[in-house]
């Protein structure tokens, strides 16, 4: 028995605003920027902006509708995180499980600096 849902494609046309830009360029830019940071639930490695999956199209349509209604991009992200968890967002928050990810560049810089300083001192 299959244990993974197969998301075959339906024969329905794409949702209203899945592939149609908003008339207001500023709103469309906002929507596009948000779509590039939301993860497609079906193809998982792609953003909803890049994915051809039906659900990604429906999510693009939802994003555009809400942006056109005046909702802020971060409110829409919060709406989706409430439904799917942080997993749906490509912009992970800083919390107990992710702080190391954010701190890693600084830690590596400090470690590298210490290494260089040690070498320079020895050479002198």
């Amino acid at each position, binding site marked *: 028995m299959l244990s993974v*849902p197969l998301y075959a494609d*339906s*024969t329905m046309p794409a949702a209203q605003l899945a592939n149609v830009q908003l008339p207001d360029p500023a709103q469309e830019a906002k929507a596009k920027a948000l779509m590039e940071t939301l993860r497609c639930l079906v193809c998982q490695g792609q953003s909803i902006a890049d994915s051809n999956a039906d659900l990604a199209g429906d999510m693009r349509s939802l994003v555009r509708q809400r942006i056109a209604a005046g909702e802020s991009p971060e409110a829409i992200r919060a709406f989706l995180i409430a439904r799917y968890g942080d997993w749906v967002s490509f912009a992970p928050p800083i919390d107990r499980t992710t702080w190391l990810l954010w701190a890693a560049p600084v830690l590596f810089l400090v470690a590298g600096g210490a290494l260089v300083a040690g070498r320079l001192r020895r050479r002198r």
Partner: protein
Amino acid sequence: MKRQLTLWLPLAIFIGLATSFVLGLRKPDDRLVPSHMIGITVPGFALPAIGTDISGLSAADLATGKPHLVNFFASWCVPCAAEAPQLQALAAQGAPILGIALRDRPADMRAFIARYGNPYRKIGMDPDSRVQINFGGSGVPETFVVDGKGVIRYQKIGPIADSEVGDLLAALKTAS
């Protein structure tokens, strides 16, 4: 001794990383996305029917005081056809099943239930996945247990296997 260590440590780290990468490539992370709406009331919705003989579905149909199974399915979804016998078995044992048809046309849906049977008390058409997103669902088929107050209690991702019919009946009982 210390010199030995600095000589071999990079190689050891490399072998460790390479092993984990190769293992990762062999067993790709094919993960499911569970709903984060468990324990939360279903946001309001009202979905149209496929015709006059089976009524459509709205959030009010969930908050009736008794738990329900809500099954997301579609006529174009092959695993949904595969789980039809299990849904029939659940309906035969008295489980109230409500259907939400994703991205579907009424005519296609009629043909689907004519062929595989109709275990559903009501079927709502969700043409742009809006209700699916509100349940935190990400594919078809998926089956949720919603309690009598309209709160989501349980999610089954993928087709229901024969062995899982009992699990769903138990989840329904727990929710009541």
